[in-house]
């Protein structure tokens, strides 16, 4: 069959993923509704930036719930949870889950939406809301590895108060000429991200960037379509959608 292959191959993975006990070491309130959990996970095998973990909570009566969360850290296991007001898991993790308590995690999961410091292409990150989390892992991994790969982040968020990692992003962009961070405040200006934003803030197609887009489904659909329309090779665009 003559299928033009647009997708590459994901990372090959082997071995069984088992549940590991994860204990909350510390936590940071990132915004009014987003909290970063720093977890101690004994024997964590390590991960690539962009991968996620499955989280399992078990109530004292045996009731369990599972969710997937992107890993925010380059090393160690930190996840940033955005509270969904009518959710059953995220409000627990943002409001109730306390230091030294344990949950279970397994991972890392996903070998496709990942960045490797051996990839020489410039990187375009495009975040919608809490979609910034796995992209932050890439920014942190780049810094940890000492890679000089030029990175741009375009971060669409409702208001400046909704920016996750605001201080850290400001500091990193200030101290590192290879990292450019641009914000689009959609609530402030009253319109969603459009082709003009992408034209202004993203690497042009001639730079052949590796593109990572993460956010709500509608946002990712819109931005990925714009990137393709602007001439970026669909094979260079990796997406992660939620909700």
């Amino acid at each position, binding site marked *: *069959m003559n*299928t*033009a292959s*647009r*997708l590459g*191959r*994901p*990372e*090959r*993975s*082997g*071995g*069984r*993923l088992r*549940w590991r006990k994860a204990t909350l070491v510390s936590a940071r309130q990132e915004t009014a509704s987003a909290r970063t959990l720093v977890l101690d996970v004994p024997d964590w095998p390590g991960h690539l930036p962009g991968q996620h973990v*499955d989280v*399992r*909570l*078990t*109530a*004292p*009566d045996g*009731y*369990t*719930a*599972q*969710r*997937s969360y992107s890993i925010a850290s380059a090393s160690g296991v930190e996840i940033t949870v955005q509270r969904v007001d009518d*959710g*059953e*898991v995220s409000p*627990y993790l943002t409001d*109730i*889950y*306390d230091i030294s*308590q*344990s*949950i*279970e995690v*397994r991972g890392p*999961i*996903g*070998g*496709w*939406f990942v960045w490797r410091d051996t990839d020489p292409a410039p990187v375009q990150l495009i975040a919608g809301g809490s979609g910034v989390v796995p992209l932050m892992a890439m920014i942190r991994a780049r810094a940890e590895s000492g890679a000089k790969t030029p990175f741009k982040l375009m971060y669409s968020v409702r208001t400046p108060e909704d920016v996750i990692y605001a201080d850290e992003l400001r500091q990193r962009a200030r101290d590192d000429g290879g990292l450019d961070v641009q914000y689009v405040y959609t609530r402030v200006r009253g319109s969603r991200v459009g082709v003009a934003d992408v034209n202004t803030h993203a690497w042009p197609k001639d730079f052949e960037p590796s593109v990572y887009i993460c956010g709500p*489904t509608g946002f*990712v*659909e819109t931005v*990925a*379509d714009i*990137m*393709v329309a602007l001439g970026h090779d*669909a*094979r260079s*665009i*990796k*997406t992660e*959608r*939620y*909700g």
Partner: protein
Amino acid sequence: MSTLTPGFGGLRRKQQPDLPPGQYLAHDFPVLSAGPTPRVRTERWEFVITTETGEEKKWTWGEFTALPYEDVTVDIHCVTKWSKLHTGWRGVPIDTLMEDVETAADYVMAHSYDGYTTNLPLEDLLDGQAWVAYRYEGEALEAEHGGPARLLVPHLYLWKSAKWIHGLRMMLEDEPGFWEEAGYHNYGDPWREQRYQGD
């Protein structure tokens, strides 16, 4: 064995007897794809079944949509944990598409227009268990959900229901598809919670 989480459970949703383990009920229709949504025009669309000897059977969009179809209501389960119950689809049963195909293969690789692949045992596609679906809830299937047509194999996790389906390739021996190669389970039965290799 499992770690108890004190204080968790107060916000639990009403237990859903129809849900496989580890799943929760979604009311919207989330989208999971590895890249941009391909826009496949129906004038250029074709569906191809390729046998292990290289023989091909092809349908254009017009030929395909003229085939006898079924309207089915099924539950769908995504490995990312959401499930959606009682979803309505129109599609052509794989039984119909395989009617004149001669094959000794036990396995199938589904190929999509974006290059995505996923592998399945042929027997899981037959006997009224799978369709090439092209309408969802009474409307043409939207591109972001796999339109113009997608595979629908509701008894397996939804990554097996390849979006933007282009064809099926018969295989004498099993090979891993896109996510299967990346550590997801080779078979993917949600009721046995076969999410990842070794589950």
